[in-house]
């Protein structure tokens, strides 16, 4: 390591340390965000009023409804007999969620065919709605009626090994109690880390431009890569401290199970952080203004990490174009990794591909921003 990197790191730490705003930003904000969003979003939405339009009416259909209403998440407030009544129940707010079971549901199930059911969710309260959708998906999964689950006198399945799927595509595994915080906290961690990493680096470089200190550095024998490494390393350290903070909050406050390897979590987080720091450097090579850097880095990281990572909306439910875009969102891969480590306790064998992508992304971003930075000097 070049001897010029160390003075830059030292200076960077001193600047962070001296400015209390930085310290708050770096250490308090992530935990605060986790608490705010964590409690805000994950306060489990219970007793959602459900309208049921059962056009089948046979026993498997009633069993299905019972599966949903036996949880504390849904309560039937309307049993309707026509599409018009169904509509009115939703429109008037009598029910937030409606379930339509088609006439051939039992027959499909019996024949081993996919048996689609339809949920209608009142989206006007998006928070409740998105959580309700998650809950539906979760229950749908656990309700995947295998022939063995069903009373033999009602259904005779043709093939005993294969489960008969109910057509609901979002499945929840390893979270049988359906605690949404188990799901949301790892996702939030990805969002917070990505945003923090990009923001911190883009701000530290933009500040050098804005204050005029960058000119002095360019006129010195300092090489671009030395400057970049010296600026990135302190934030890797800080990012990892944040990971530990977040981990503590997640495990002790939100009671998210941590089933996997801590080492693997730290290594994956480092790789993910490097990508975020790379985004930050790339942004700072494009603007000399602190304010623009702030806005760009939020825009470039928070929105994709929130909306396109599979955190809020299941990727499978997105239009194909958006689905294609999600492949470029690092948070999508990190989500697989971090949920895997937290909830499933799985390791590299399961998500090595995701880690490879994250590494490639980090290297690409760092090289690209280094090149862009060099060009910047005209």
């Amino acid at each position, binding site marked *: 390591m070049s*001897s010029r990197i160390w003075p830059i790191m030292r*200076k960077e730490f001193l*600047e962070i340390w001296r400015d209390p705003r930085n310290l708050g930003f770096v250490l308090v904000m992530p935990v605060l965000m986790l608490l705010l969003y964590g409690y805000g979003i994950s306060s489990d939405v219970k007793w959602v009023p459900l309208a049921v339009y059962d056009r089948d009416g046979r026993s498997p259909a009633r069993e299905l409804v019972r599966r949903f209403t036996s949880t504390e998440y849904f309560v039937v407030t309307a049993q309707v007999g026509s599409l018009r009544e169904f509509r009115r129940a939703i429109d008037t707010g009598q029910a937030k969620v409606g379930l339509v079971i088609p006439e051939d549901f039992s027959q499909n199930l019996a024949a081993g065919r996919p048996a689609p059911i339809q949920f209608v969710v009142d989206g006007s309260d998006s928070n409740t709605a998105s959580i309700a959708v998650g809950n539906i998906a979760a229950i749908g999964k656990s309700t995947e009626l295998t022939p063995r689950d069903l009373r033999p006198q009602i259904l005779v399945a043709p093939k005993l090994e294969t489960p008969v799927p109910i057509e609901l595509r979002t499945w929840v595994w390893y979270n049988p109690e359906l605690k949404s915080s188990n799901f949301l906290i790892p996702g939030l961690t990805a969002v917070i880390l990505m945003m923090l990493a990009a923001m911190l680096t883009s701000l530290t470089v933009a500040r050098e431009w804005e204050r005029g200190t960058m*000119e*002095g550095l360019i006129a010195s024998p300092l090489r671009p890569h030395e400057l970049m490494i010296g600026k990135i390393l302190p934030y890797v350290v800080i990012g990892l401290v944040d990971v530990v903070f977040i981990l503590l909050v997640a495990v002790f406050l939100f009671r998210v199970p941590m089933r996997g390897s801590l080492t693997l979590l730290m290594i994956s987080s480092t790789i993910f952080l490097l990508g975020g720091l790379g985004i930050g450097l790339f942004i700072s090579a494009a603007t000399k203004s602190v304010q623009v850097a702030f806005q760009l880095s939020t825009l470039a990281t928070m929105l994709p990490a929130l909306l396109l990572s599979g955190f809020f909306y299941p990727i499978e439910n997105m239009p194909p174009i958006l689905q294609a875009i999600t492949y470029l969102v690092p948070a999508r891969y990190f989500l697989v990794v971090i949920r895997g480590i937290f909830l499933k306790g799985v390791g590299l064998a399961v998500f090595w591909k995701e880690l490879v992508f994250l590494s490639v992304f980090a290297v690409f971003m760092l090289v690209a921003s280094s090149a862009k930075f060099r060009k910047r*000097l005209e």
Partner: protein
Amino acid sequence: MNSELAIEVTDITKRFGRFVAVDRVSFQVRRGEVFGFLGPNGSGKSTTIRMLCGILLPTAGTGRVAGFDVARQPERVRENIGYMSQKFSLYEELTVQENLDFFAGIYGLAGPGGAARREEVMALGGLASYRNVLARDLPGGLRQRLALASAILHRPSVLFLDEPTAGVDPISRRQFWDLIRAMAAAGTAVLVTTHYMDEAEHCHALAFIYQGRLIATGPPARLKAGLQGSLVEVEVEPGQLLPALTVLQTHPLAREAAMFGAALHVTVDSSEAIPTLQASLTARGIAARRVETIVPSLEDVFVSLVTREVGA
């Protein structure tokens, strides 16, 4: 390579899009020389310095600094120069000592030798008793000295100072110039820009730059001697300054006339024109309190050069 020449600039040009910020500028600075760069706002002083420091790439022309080509060997150039930009370029959240440590670090001056050098520049800038003060809290004059101290830590053979004394009180300015002259005496070449004409008098050589072009170079004395004709200062009642200026500017014997503080400066072919000028003013009802030839200042030289440039 001429080892006496610290800076050698030939037809250096910088365009930003279609705008020509620096237009075929050529000059030379010898070792141990203080070279002053004078010009109004936006004339291209900083842009020229940035090109010579390897911060901006010249669009055309060449610049050699400490024997290295600024476009082709920018890294070698950077090792041999000290640069003080026109913006305060230190870390405000760091103390005097920490700032110096930082610059020592990036110039590879760690270790005991470096520590001694840090103490040396700290003493030179009179900063020793402020070593634990945050740069943010330093008064203006000391900030500039700290910036200079950081720029000379690595004993550069060429020093670029872009408006080093802007906004600094007169006593601090004088101290600062003592430092500059001492360094030049020790063999450093110094290229300095300033808006203060009195500071320009301290330079060994000057270059006037106007709208990106060099309009005159030379030692201050020769520039002043080069002003053709005599310079006449006219003092009138404050309320009559503008009418008097109009009269003098259109006067057949006056080559140039310009406002100069509370007085007017008129360039004439010889001092014999004075009675005629006075008569013309009286004819318009303007009472001149004083009309006499004076020794031109650098500002007169500059105004005269610019007027000629604009007229051409």
